[in-house]
């Protein structure tokens, strides 16, 4: 065994830093020495440049863990497969390289399912490897047997059940290629135990051979039609009120620089989606921040026009000011959280949609000019056209209107009567009500103290929206959030994955008490693996976003949204300081405003995992707010 391993190490090229062999059509596949399936798998991962794998072992995957002990790949043991898979997503989302997670069969595999679905919704390159029972046992209801290929079928970009040890090199190479190119996504590799144990001489295919064998997979080669690009320029020349609506596609295709050039050359303001945050610097004068249900009022008005606020959808929509007459939608998918009622979204504008995934065109919203193609390539060519023939249009009035909107409705907060009379004031702050900390203040302070440079992750809910609103992001991949699936518990494990990728950067999970508790076991991973990811819990003892909807639509009736101890509401429950301490992770509780900044500074100064448990009122609502399926006329933006 050790002998084969030695030989393997010698034959394997350095996974990292080694110059890539130039692709050549004449290059033949390389044949290795005989080795077992699990060793082949690990070498295949090394050959793909994998630095780290988040893997929780079990009966059907322990063989692979044995191989990993002999590899230079760092294996991080999460404390739950879900935590490991979210960490792999965090790693992938900031590096753009596929994140790799692994579990055993059955329950291990099903615990990866949420991250696979999450990666599918947010187009995140993820390789999920699952152990499987021996092939002869498949279909017999064996111990820890689950048909994970069947389970994950609708939520993967592709998947493989390996039935022949000779297929491992090809399948792994294909999996990485598919996961990382075109519109990225998750790929599941299900590897039965007997295949892991079988021996063969691996044949390592080249990338060219892989591309050739994947004849149905053409996504990476899609380029926008030249005529369509010319038409876009023509539309811009005619437009009076153009807006760019940009999404995660900008980040995925590494097109942020091209977008900035394009926006500056055309002087078109840019609204991003939640997933597109960082794709355009939010400190830029042309930035409209992000749009949608909880996005900036001025972004929503710029796209849809300003309407008189109505309190019921039965009232007519009364337009006050015109919105965009041209909407350039680049790398977006017209998500319902962005559009509200699909037909009303940018109703009076001409809509152009460029995306690499043809199935997104005309899916949620019929558009006037659908264009299939990689957005970076499209923007580069548009920029070249603009360089040859610059536009002389300035849209001065339009930009002035947008400035007026920005002045009128910036993100804002204040102590409302609901907060002044809340249980939080009575039970937690007796006599010190002026010291109340609001959620937005925490993120504002964090933004200042980190100089806007930290990587931010989130769970899902109110805190997630505030983390988007009150931290300003200047670079792509800086804001990492579960946007499409909305997976609570995403924040802290994702922060671990990011910190592993960028150990010298500050990585902070802005979380809610509900979300943080869902993967709290990962504090052990952070401590044991010495991953200094930080967390701020905006602890309101409630499921804040659901509470907000209860207040708005259910007369404040609480349907199991209180997360504290109902028998002792005055006490914060659970006691995160004690919980964290039991993991040997430092934690402070912050109750008063005067303590907030010093506590954040101590957290930032720490060289180890650190948690701030900040106690905030549950009566605070996220504004602006366009209720689901409604329109900009229904937007609540003043407290």
């Amino acid at each position, binding site marked *: 065994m050790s002998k084969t391993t030695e030989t393997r190490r010698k034959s394997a090229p350095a996974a990292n830093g080694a110059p890539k062999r130039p692709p050549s059509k004449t290059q033949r596949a390389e044949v290795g020495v005989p080795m077992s399936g699990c060793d082949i798998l690990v070498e295949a991962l090394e050959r793909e440049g994998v630095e780290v794998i988040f893997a929780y072992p079990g009966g059907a995957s322990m063989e692979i863990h044995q191989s990993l002990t002999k590899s230079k790949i760092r294996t991080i043991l999460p404390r739950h497969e879900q935590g490991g898979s979210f960490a792999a997503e965090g790693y992938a989302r900031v590096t753009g390289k596929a994140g790799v997670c692994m579990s055993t069969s059955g329950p291990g595999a099903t615990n990866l399912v949420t991250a696979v679905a999450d990666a599918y919704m947010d187009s995140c390159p993820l390789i999920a490897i699952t152990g499987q029972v021996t092939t002869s046992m498949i279909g017999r209801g064996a111990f820890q047997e689950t048909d994970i290929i*069947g389970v994950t079928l*609708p939520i993967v970009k592709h998947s493989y*059940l390996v039935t022949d040890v000779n297929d491992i090199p090809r399948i792994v190479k*294909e999996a990485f290629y598919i996961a990382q190119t075109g519109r990225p996504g998750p790929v599941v590799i299900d590897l039965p135990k007997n295949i892991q144990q079988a021996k063969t001489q691996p044949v390592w295919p080249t990338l060219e051979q892989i591309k050739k064998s994947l*004849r149905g*997979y053409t996504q990476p080669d899609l380029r926008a039609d030249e005529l369509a690009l010319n038409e876009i320029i023509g539309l811009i020349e005619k437009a009076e009120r153009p807006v760019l609506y940009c999404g995660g596609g900008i980040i995925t295709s590494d097109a942020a620089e091209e977008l900035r050039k394009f926006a500056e050359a055309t002087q078109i303001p840019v609204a991003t989606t939640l997933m597109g945050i960082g794709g355009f610097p939010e400190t830029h004068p042309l930035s409209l921040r992000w749009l949608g249900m909880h996005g900036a009022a001025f972004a929503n008005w710029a796209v849809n026009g300003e309407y008189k606020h109505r309190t019921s959808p039965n009232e007519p929509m009364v337009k006050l000011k015109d919105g965009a007459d041209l909407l350039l939608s680049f790398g977006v998918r017209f998500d319902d959280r962005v559009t509200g009622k699909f037909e009303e979204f940018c109703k009076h504008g001409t809509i152009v949609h460029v995306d690499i*995934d*043809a*199935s997104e065109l*005309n899916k949620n919203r019929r558009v006037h000019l659908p264009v299939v193609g990689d957005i970076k390539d499209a923007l580069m060519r548009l920029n070249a056209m603009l360089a040859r023939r610059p536009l002389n249009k300035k849209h001065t009035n339009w930009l002035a209107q947008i400035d007026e909107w920005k002045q009128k409705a910036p993100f804002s907060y204040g102590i409302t009567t609901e907060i002044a009379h809340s249980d939080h004031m009575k039970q937690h702050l007796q006599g010190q009500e002026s010291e109340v900390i609001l959620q937005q203040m925490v993120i504002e302070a964090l933004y200042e103290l980190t100089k806007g440079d930290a990587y931010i992750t989130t769970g899902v809910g109110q805190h997630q929206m505030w983390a988007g609103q009150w931290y300003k992001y200047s670079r792509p991949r800086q804001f990492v959030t579960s946007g499409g699936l909305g997976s609570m518990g995403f924040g802290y494990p994702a922060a671990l994955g990011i910190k592993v990728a960028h150990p010298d950067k500050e990585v902070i999970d802005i979380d809610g008490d509900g979300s943080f508790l869902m993967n709290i076991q990962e504090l052990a991973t952070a401590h044991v693996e010495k991953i200094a990811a930080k967390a701020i819990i905006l602890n309101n003892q409630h499921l804040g976003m659901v509470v907000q909807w209860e207040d708005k639509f259910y007369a404040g009736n609480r349907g199991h949204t209180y997360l504290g101890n109902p028998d002792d509401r005055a006490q914060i429950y659970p006691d995160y300081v004690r919980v964290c301490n039991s993991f040997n992770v430092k934690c402070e509780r912050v109750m008063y405003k005067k303590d907030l900044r010093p506590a954040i500074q101590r957290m930032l100064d720490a060289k180890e995992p650190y948690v701030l448990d900040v106690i905030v009122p549950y009566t605070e609502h996220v504004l602006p707010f366009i209720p689901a399926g409604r329109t900009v006329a229904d937007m609540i933006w003043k407290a």
Partner: protein
Amino acid sequence: MRHTISVLVENKFGVLTRVAGLFSGRGYNIDSLNVAPTHDPTASRMTIVTRGDDATVEQIVKQLKKLPDVIKVVDFRDGEYVDRELVLVKVSVDSKARAEVMQITDIFRAKIVDVQAKTLSIEITGDESKVEKFIELMKTFGVLELTRTGRVALPRK
């Protein structure tokens, strides 16, 4: 509206499930589905007949194209393709009816493939209208069992 979709796929296990899943996941029923290898043994052709509004079928076609195992998808329009279906039908006959059934079989250029004392098994190939009409006629004698391949189609050009 009725659509005939021709899907060229890799001849691998699991591909049928992936394709069928795109229909079932959207609540779409498949009227008929035929799948078999082509002249290239590594590829299979599926011919799927489904009903749905154009926007949804367009969406399904795009989703099909996204599958790495799918090589080519064509949503046929009327007149662009030739299609055939093969039906095997077992008809109950007595000595009187037998001659009449044989006569109709002849008119339709169908073929009797098995003769039993009280039944005839008939093979008929054709487009949908021909096959449907033949089955209608056979029903007057009593159809005991019937199986059909579903539509197979090829583009004219």
